[in-house]
């Protein structure tokens, strides 16, 4: 069985373990520096197992050394975004923790595929990859996949159809500047624009763009965690099953979409080794322009942070 370690036993980490257990066989390790939290949540999940037919084992620990030889490591440790916060400020707070975790992974599980759930996704995914010194294809940020599941839901809800057949790709930074590839938003292959009208689809896209903020506003003290947990579990499915599912994720580009040395959202095939290929689509002029502008902003945020750190 594959060994999957989840670092951070907060809501996102624990729900990732939960979604994995509901669907597949794996050995899951939940790690948290807070004494007893990971152990307590793991025990609670395992005690649901007899009723829910789990074949997955879940164990909690405070010892990071237990992640040794994991096949997949998921990083969820970091503080969540505050309403309206700039990505640079969040980065300054989360980067030290994430860098330290990446160093542990380099030492203990250097062959693992690493999934980053910590915001700002693109900047920290790059930081993890640089710290690991690993193959860039083995470090994946959950960005577009989360927004993709949101637009899929919103489209299905607006049409009154089931969401399983709805697709939708998002590229660019995991940020309000993300670019929705309208033509990929479809139901059983039928363009959603033909079913909903361009204007209504546009409204839903704007709703999906700010969906994270809406949940933050509604729940007040917490950000969303079910959809992010489901997105990470979906990546685990693709990695463990080596399915080569086409999913929008943040990965360091070296020439793809004209980007070099930055992690950014692109459509990628996901398999046992992480990203097994980046799908380079021909973008419309408008999408190209929006993507380039968003990427330039991300690049400049990154340059500012690097200069600040030096």
């Amino acid at each position, binding site marked *: 069985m594959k060994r999957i370690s989840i670092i951070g036993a907060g809501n996102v980490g624990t729900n990732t373990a939960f979604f994995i257990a509901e669907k597949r066989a794996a050995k899951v390790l939940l790690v948290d520096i807070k004494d007893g939290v990971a152990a307590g949540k793991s025990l609670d999940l395992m005690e649901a197992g007899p009723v829910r*037919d789990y074949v997955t084992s879940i164990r909690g620990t405070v010892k990071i050394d237990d992640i040794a030889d994991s096949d997949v490591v998921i990083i969820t440790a970091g503080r969540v975004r505050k309403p309206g916060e700039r990505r640079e400020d969040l980065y300054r707070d989360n980067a030290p923790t994430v860098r330290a975790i990446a160093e542990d992974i380099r030492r203990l599980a250097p062959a693992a595929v690493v999934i980053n759930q910590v915001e700002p996704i693109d900047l920290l995914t790059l930081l993890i990859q640089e710290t690991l010194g690993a193959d860039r294809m083995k470090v994946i940020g959950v960005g577009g996949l989360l927004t993709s599941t949101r637009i899929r839901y919103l489209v299905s809800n607006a049409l009154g*159809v089931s969401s*399983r057949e709805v697709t939708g*790709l998002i590229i660019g930074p995991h940020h309000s500047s993300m670019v929705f590839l309208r033509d*990929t938003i479809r139901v*059983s292959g*039928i363009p959603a624009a033909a079913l909903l009208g361009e204007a209504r689809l546009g409204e839903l896209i704007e709703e999906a763009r700010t969906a994270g903020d809406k949940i933050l506003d509604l729940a007040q003290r917490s950000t969303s965690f079910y959809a992010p947990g489901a997105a990470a579990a979906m990546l685990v499915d693709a990695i463990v099953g080596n399915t080569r599912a086409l999913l929008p994720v943040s990965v360091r580009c070296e020439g793809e979409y004209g980007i070099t040395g930055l992690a950014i959202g692109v459509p990628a095939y996901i398999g046992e080794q992480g990203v097994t290929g980046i799908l380079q689509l021909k973008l419309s002029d408008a999408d190209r322009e929006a993507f380039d502008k968003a990427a330039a902003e991300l690049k400049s945020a990154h340059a500012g942070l690097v200069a600040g750190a030096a």
Partner: protein
Amino acid sequence: MSKNKVSIIGAGNVGATATYYIAEKVIADLVMVDVAGGMTQAKALDFLQAGPLRGYDVSIVGTSDFSQIADSNVVVITAGLPRKPGMDRMDLLKVNAEIVKQAARAIADHAPNAIVIAVSNPLDIMCHVALRSTGFALRRVVGMAGILDSTRFRYFVAEQLGCALSSVHAMVLGGHGDQMVPLPRLTTVGGVPITELMEAATIARLVDRTRKGGAEIVALLKTGSAYYAPAASVAEMVEAVITDRKHLAPCAAYVRGEYGINDLFIGVPAILGKNGVERIVELDLADDERAQLLASADAVRKGVEELNSFFKPT
């Protein structure tokens, strides 16, 4: 909410395997009806004895008594003969029309509120038989074809690209036969049309293989025909109705003017839910796609005319 009940008429490979897929989803009690009562009872018992291991606590009855389908939410008609060597098309049509008619009349008698899913071949024609012999409202009778044709197309695309099956969606319209109309521009990987991912010649090869998907399996098996993918397609449709999933998928539905076709069962995108075909989705088709669909409809219409030459619904 009373427990859902699904009946399958015809407990051959397609019927029994569909029963298996539905039992595994634990969404309904099941009844298999077949003139071969002992065989059907045996299959039901065998399934029930697998239940403790597979974790399905549904009731499964095997019987030759049609009255057991009473109060089903969904009835699937899989009964029918395969074409035997030397049998001509018309003979097969007559034999299967009679079998489906008997099934349909039993449904009208015992399960008057059911949604009917026709599976027997020739599919589009048997939908007409089921509709006329049940006397049900048009939207309560639907045929299983497009989901099967599109699951085959999806598999071929995923295999060709080496990508996950779950990332591929496909749309195949028209009658269930050589003249089906696979639509590559509405067949996607993660929403990206395959026309952007593959050469035209490759797509043409996969389209052709999809058209001949049933025949490919028959040729390999020598005796018998496909049943796993057909049964999975049946289970998908049953699930859509039982769970009211509003599943947008290609199905053989009765069109009255949609796509410029009148009074015919033909494969079109439809939303499946608890009321059967809840909506037919009309797409803008390109000229060549429309021409193919109309040609396919003509072929189905010819079959219906053959049926009309002898068929009495009651």
